[in-house]
């Protein structure tokens, strides 16, 4: 990152949400790299950019495909790499043909000349990388968005090489690790396919069970199943869906349809308030041993520095005890023992990562199959081997769709959501410290919209979507364009922004479209917000 030539931050405000990673970007920028930031808001990251591409929300595929067309028409695609490592290029070439600069400018709002400039710079660079986060994935077509970016690196060969690549910047210390461990519906530990009989046989043998060849559900599917009456109980570990899920009223109705809820958490969160049983847990990053995997696939040790308070117990101890009550001996609740079992069941990824090596190397990047393996700096380096090793990387044929809920006469503004430097998600953790930077939730809007509506900073505004209505003070923000308003998800105890957001979701990833919904704005009475807060139900009723 520090020695690359071009960095795209696409739907990512790393300056605030990945500040230490942004230090590395800035080292690159100071060394001469061009930084392009693709974001509907002119964020603090965009302020560092050579070009800010302030596209309309949810038009990323149109932009990416138009860039591809520019690159192909200029003859700057990496033909050798495409030939050796990819498939479906011809279909992709035809797919992007209608994405002319004129069309893209019209759809995205980014000037054609800028699209052309950054596309050519990306293609001509020796090293270039694309980093993305939730601006890409919190859409109803999240996976398609990701595929559109992957297409760009396949087209140019900016992958699997030093200073190049596509990097999802993970939002939590163990998002990657959760996937690594099989905490996704269709995979076992090490991304092994649960529908593969040979895989199941290995796990069955190790665990002395017969595993059903059945794919699980995403959290979004689970909530739909609750609504359909197919779910009767829920066991929530370290998640706060009562506040973090889109379309909050819908979420609460789903939770209230359940017979039994168990919540295992370090706090009595809103979700825990709905629970029949709360299991007080230790804080996994400082009161327990284990590992987490960061955005660069580096498995690192977390260590116990504190004794947990009172009766709070290590997650692993709780799960082991529940296993015992259900008649299964899950073995000793010891992190290293569990880790070694993981290594034995996913040896290609973790086989070489003993605790001793993780300690000595300050973490190792998977895949790391043997004790003599230094770990893998590049996941897709195989694409450069000649002849190619493994399957070809396919171009994905994805088209522009745009957000499901666009502004219309009844709901004329577009609401997008995001995060701030000093706060974190639903604020359960970051609410615990005082910060001179913190300010309460606000409805951020452009000066143009404020003038049109005749409102000023601090005026109370009622914000209504098709799903619900809340009140928040206006904050005029010059980083926004007319028609686009912004709120965070950090202060849901005070302002329940997720009452507004739409739960239309991506069937492939299970992610809701937090980044786009349509809202109506009306002036509110000053006391309205507080009155609403006092009156509202704290838990789902019957």
């Amino acid at each position: 990152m520090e020695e690359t030539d071009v960095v795209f931050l696409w739907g990512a405000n790393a300056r605030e949400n990945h500040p230490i990673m942004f230090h590395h970007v800035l080292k690159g920028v100071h060394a001469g790299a061009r930084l392009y930031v693709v974001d509907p808001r002119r964020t603090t990251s965009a302020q560092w950019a050579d070009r800010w591409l302030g596209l309309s929300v949810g038009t990323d595929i149109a932009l990416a495909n138009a860039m591809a067309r520019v690159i192909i028409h200029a003859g700057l695609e990496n033909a050798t790499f495409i030939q050796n490592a990819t498939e479906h290029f011809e279909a992709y070439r035809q797919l992007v043909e209608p994405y002319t600069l004129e069309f893209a400018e019209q759809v995205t709002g980014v000037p054609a000349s800028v699209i052309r400039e950054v596309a050519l710079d990306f293609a001509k660079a020796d090293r270039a990388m694309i980093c993305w986060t939730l601006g890409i994935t919190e859409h109803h077509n999240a996976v398609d968005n990701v595929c559109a970016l992957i297409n760009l690196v396949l087209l140019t060969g900016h992958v699997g090489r030093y200073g190049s690549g596509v990097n999802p910047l993970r939002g939590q210390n163990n998002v990657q690790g959760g996937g690594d461990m099989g905490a996704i519906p269709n995979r076992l530990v090490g991304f092994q396919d649960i529908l593969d009989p040979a895989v199941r046989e290995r796990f069955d043998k190790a665990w002395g069970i017969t595993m059903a060849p059945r794919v699980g559900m995403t959290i979004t599917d689970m909530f739909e199943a609750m609504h359909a009456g197919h779910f009767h109980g829920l066991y929530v570990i370290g998640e706060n869906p009562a506040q973090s899920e889109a379309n909050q009223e819908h979420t609460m109705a789903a939770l209230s349809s359940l017979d039994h809820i168990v919540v295992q958490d370090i706090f009595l969160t809103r979700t825990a308030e709905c629970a029949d049983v709360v299991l007080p847990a230790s804080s996994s990053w400082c009161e327990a041993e284990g590992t987490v995997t960061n955005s660069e696939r580096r498995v690192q040790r977390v260590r116990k520095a504190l004794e947990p308070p009172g009766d709070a117990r290590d997650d692993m101890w709780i799960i082991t005890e529940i296993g015992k009550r259900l008649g299964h001996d899950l073995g000793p609740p010891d992190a290293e023992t569990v880790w070694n079992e993981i290594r034995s069941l996913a040896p290609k990824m973790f086989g070489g990562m003993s605790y001793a090596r993780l300690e000595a190397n300050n973490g190792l990047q998977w895949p790391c199959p043997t004790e003599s393996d230094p770990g893998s700096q590049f996941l897709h380096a195989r694409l450069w081997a000649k002849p190619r090793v493994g399957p070809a990387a396919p171009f994905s044929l994805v088209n522009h769709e745009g957000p499901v809920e666009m502004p219309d006469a009844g709901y004329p503004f577009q609401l997008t959501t995001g995060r701030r430097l000093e706060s974190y998600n639903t604020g359960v953790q970051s609410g615990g410290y005082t910060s001179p930077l913190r300010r309460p939730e606000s409805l951020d809007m452009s000066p143009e919209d404020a003038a049109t509506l005749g409102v000023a900073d601090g005026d109370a505004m009622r914000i209504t979507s098709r799903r619900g209505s809340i009140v928040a003070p206006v904050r005029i923000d010059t980083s926004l364009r007319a028609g686009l308003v912004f709120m965070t998800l950090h202060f849901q105890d005070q302002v329940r922004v997720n009452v507004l957001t739409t739960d239309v979701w991506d069937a492939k990833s299970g992610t809701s479209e937090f980044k786009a919904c349509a809202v109506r704005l009306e002036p509110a009475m000053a006391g309205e917000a507080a009155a609403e807060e006092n009156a509202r139900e704290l838990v789902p009723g019957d």
Partner: protein
Amino acid sequence: MTAPGALVQISPPRRSVELTIDGDTVAAPEGTTILDACRQRGQDIPTLCYLETLHPVNACRVCVVEVENSRVLVPSCSRRIEPGMVVHTDSPRVRHSRKMVLEFLASSVDLSTTPHAAEWIASYECHPERYGPPAPPAAAGIRDAAHAGHHEPPDPAFAATVHQPIKADNELYVRDYGKCILCYKCVEACGIDYQNTYAIAVAGRGFDARISTEFSVPLPGSACVYCGNCIAVCPTGALMFSSEHDRRAAGTWDESRQSVVDTICPYCGVGCTLSLHVQNNEIVKVTSPFDVSITHGNLCIKGRFGWQYVQERPGNGKRTNGVPRRPRDIEAASNAAGKSRRKGHDISQRDGPQHDGPPHAGTPGDGDGKGSGHP
């Protein structure tokens, strides 16, 4: 070509350079500084403004050494070794220079929380008191208001000092510029070396020079984003976390009873190493090791200060019951506990969820989609 995925060596191999340090012939890779060459052979040299993660600014002059045929003493922290160089690290000229530097600093600045200061002052036989009794502290704001060219001649009866009241204008930091030696480390860390926030710089000239925000505004009115990276590099304790400052003031700061445990920050996926300084089962300070390639010792506001929630749970010695609570929501929780819920099914008798729908792609990328979900 290297094997797919293997670690890439990007810098060319370095030649070995031979030189003489204090009479010994020494070899080290080209590009090494004199300081590193000395430290590699187990020989330490005092430093104040030097840090391996920052660009050297050669401000403090305490690390100077004598190089034969050089007109002046050279800063060992930035001067690179050359073939045939003859270095003296402890010659009378070097010792005299260090003594002078340390005396000037000790007579004008409070070095009481500077590691090794007392030891160096003793070993270089410094007598800072010979410059006279320290001048009384300046009133708050006086040094901040000094303009170049408006300097009053100092009172010869006193040793001039930078002593002044501490600045405690926010919840997270304390700035005690009576302890500041103007080493520039905080400016470098806040500026181009890492944070690129440029909230602070050196203002004023000569003895009036001081570290300042723009127009000396309090930190909450400045560009500061409270990453604490200035505090992490401060060599004298002029910049201090409130959590440390307040305990020191109360007499409860005790490093002999502190343990330091490295773990990983929970607040994003970058994977910053946090060194938790723990005293009496409480986190009292968070730093990051300078030799970790992800952080180089830097953190953001969340990693540096966002741990307090862990300690706000009842039970850290004052636990009242078995359920942890968010401090701000105790009342709401007790209301919730009173609500009844629909019961009547024994779910332990049920099979697991029968889900026969289409398989879900569940790409590794979908985890972030629930990014708002983790408490």
